[in-house]
């Protein structure tokens, strides 16, 4: 028999309000993604759709230590980061649908969500390309004497790109307040880290550049919160960059076009990893710790599913962008119409 665990040590430093928030945000992302998948299957979303299901603890844990005026920037699997940062799920869903009320007026789509009002600096489809951008934002903050921090999410797939290494060097050299948060879900599309990286312990690259670096269980929202909390505190106080490798896993395929149990990983592996479901684990912990009761959890679930239903209804009701919008936002004031 395992020794009984003292209840408070299950969720150190967490009160009911925080538990509710963390669980609610993870659920919001999960349900958003599930609905997006449905809409994609119905043909309402075109092109590609990359779901964040399984990785929710990273975005939610990290964002929970940020201030509203801190920045987040991400790659193309960014719905979770954008939601966690506080964007309106209705406008996000409308963006995925390519509708006029979308965050980017329906012109960005799933991979290019931007929300200035919550300092979310976008999704980026080109792998690795946003890492130096994060460094630039960090530079600007420091230059202006601000104390905000940039959190830059990226996948293990970006690590072999030159821009990863260039960015590590720059933020270390110039001491920039950027927290690079690698979501290591072990695959870049169908290529495992073992087949792509000479050094699969990604956090160790940070050491080479003299950047405080660590690895964290990305399925544990509180562990992420702590690790990112430490890094953000250093960045804010002393403009110290960080590299954090979150060990996580995507439960679905790379995109909706890639079936979950595709050729590059086994069904058993996926099933095993699903035992680490961050939402299931956290819910069990807060219930066991007596922080929330079953009724509280049901209420959170109800609220989340109402918000997502609203988001879908909003997106469905939003018209397509008018044809004239093709020619807007290309230059300041020059019409490029043919």
């Amino acid at each position: 028999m395992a020794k009984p665990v003292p209840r408070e040590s299950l969720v150190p430093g967490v009160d009911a309000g925080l538990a509710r928030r963390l669980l609610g945000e993870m659920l919001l992302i999960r349900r958003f993604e599930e609905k997006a998948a449905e809409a994609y299957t119905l043909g309402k979303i075109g092109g590609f759709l990359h779901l964040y299901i399984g990785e929710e603890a990273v975005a939610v844990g990290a964002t929970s230590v940020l201030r509203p005026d801190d920045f987040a920037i991400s790659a193309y699997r960014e719905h979770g980061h954008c939601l966690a940062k506080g964007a309106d799920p209705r406008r996000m869903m409308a963006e995925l649908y390519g509708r006029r009320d979308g965050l980017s007026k329906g012109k960005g789509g799933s991979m290019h969500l931007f929300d200035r009002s919550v300092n979310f600096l976008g999704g980026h489809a080109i792998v690795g390309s946003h890492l130096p951008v994060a460094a630039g934002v960090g530079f600007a903050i420091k230059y202006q004497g601000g104390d905000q921090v940039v959190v830059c999410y990226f996948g293990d797939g970006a690590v072999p790109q030159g821009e990863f290494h260039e960015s590590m060097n720059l933020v270390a050299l110039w001491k920039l307040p950027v927290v690079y948060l690698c979501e290591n879900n072990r695959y870049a599309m169908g290529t495992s880290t073992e087949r792509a990286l000479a050094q699969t312990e990604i956090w160790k690259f940070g050491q080479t550049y003299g950047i405080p670096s660590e690895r964290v269980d990305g399925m544990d929202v509180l562990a992420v919160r702590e690790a990112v909390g430490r890094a953000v505190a250093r960045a804010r106080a002393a403009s110290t960059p960080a590299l954090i490798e979150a060990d996580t896993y995507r439960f679905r395929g790379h995109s909706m076009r890639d079936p979950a149990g595709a050729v590059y990983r086994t069904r058993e592996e996926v099933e095993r990893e699903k035992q680490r479901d961050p939402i299931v684990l956290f819910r069990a912990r807060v219930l066991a710790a007596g922080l929330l009761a079953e009724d509280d959890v049901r209420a959170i679930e109800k609220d989340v599913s109402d918000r997502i239903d609203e988001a879908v209804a909003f997106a469905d009701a939003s018209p397509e962008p008018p044809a004239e919008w093709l020619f807007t936002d290309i230059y300041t004031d020059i019409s490029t119409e043919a």
Partner: protein
Amino acid sequence: MPKLNMVKALNTALFEEMARDPDVLVLGEDVGVDGGVFRVTDDLQRKFGSQRVIDSPLAEAGIIGTAVGMALYGLKPICEIQFSGFAFQCFHQIENHAARYRSRSQGRFHCQMVIRMPYGGGVRALEHHTESEEQFYAHIPGLKMVIPSGPRTARALLAAAIRDPDPVIFFEAKALYHAAKEDVPDESETLPLGRAQVAREGGDLTLIAYGAMLRVALEAADVLQTEDGASVEVLDLLTISPLDRATLVASVAKTGRAVVVHEAPRSFGPGAEIAASIMDGAFLSLEAPVRRVTAYDVAFAGFAREKATVPDVPRVVAAARETLAF
């Protein structure tokens, strides 16, 4: 003669060329185990092994730079970039290395390599996954820029590109991958690079197209024939650079009228060069200004508006009518 779609036709060419020449190898992201984003390299790794069909890390500059080195040594790499929109990560390697080694080394070194990339609309995706960027490569001396228009030309041109001693940028229209099937001969065949084809003969107007736009041009020609009684010649460029000016000029010298169709944005696009070449070679035969039907000069349209941006039959027909009525 089996009927193949373009994916299968390209896959066939890769199989044949790898079997034919042990120096040919394939490299790119997910080309091996996964068989490529669009499955063009399907089964190659099983057949030829992971020494010749190489899953690379996600590093486009690394892929092309490495391939340049392989080519300098005498291998004949075929690189896959998953979408043409990702190639800016390796653009420097292409324009500064692949394209220039021959001239830089006064012919002592050259890069026999092919860089395959899907391009253009057709998958309701965004920006990098939908754009057409042939103009960037066509502008670079030392590169050849090839775009097949269907399964048969795809198989023949890919084989020719692989055997060509110069670096070839090989664009594959996503819209064509799973579109119509065509008869593809059992025997391996090639088509000469730098040569356009007359896809349909006519005497009143020349439509010039390539890649996925060939279908659009052919359909427009049908409409013009049935509704206007106009006899329209359609040229399939196949190679964008070096441009087959002789075929262009001969056709327009005959018809006196020309409309160019492409998916790339208009300004400084291939249509401009084509129009200038026609002016140079067939000025006195021209009855009307050369028109262009292209994507607009906008960064991207969003998938909801992809159809509004990529040229379609009505736009081509309208431009042709204006040209005919000029």
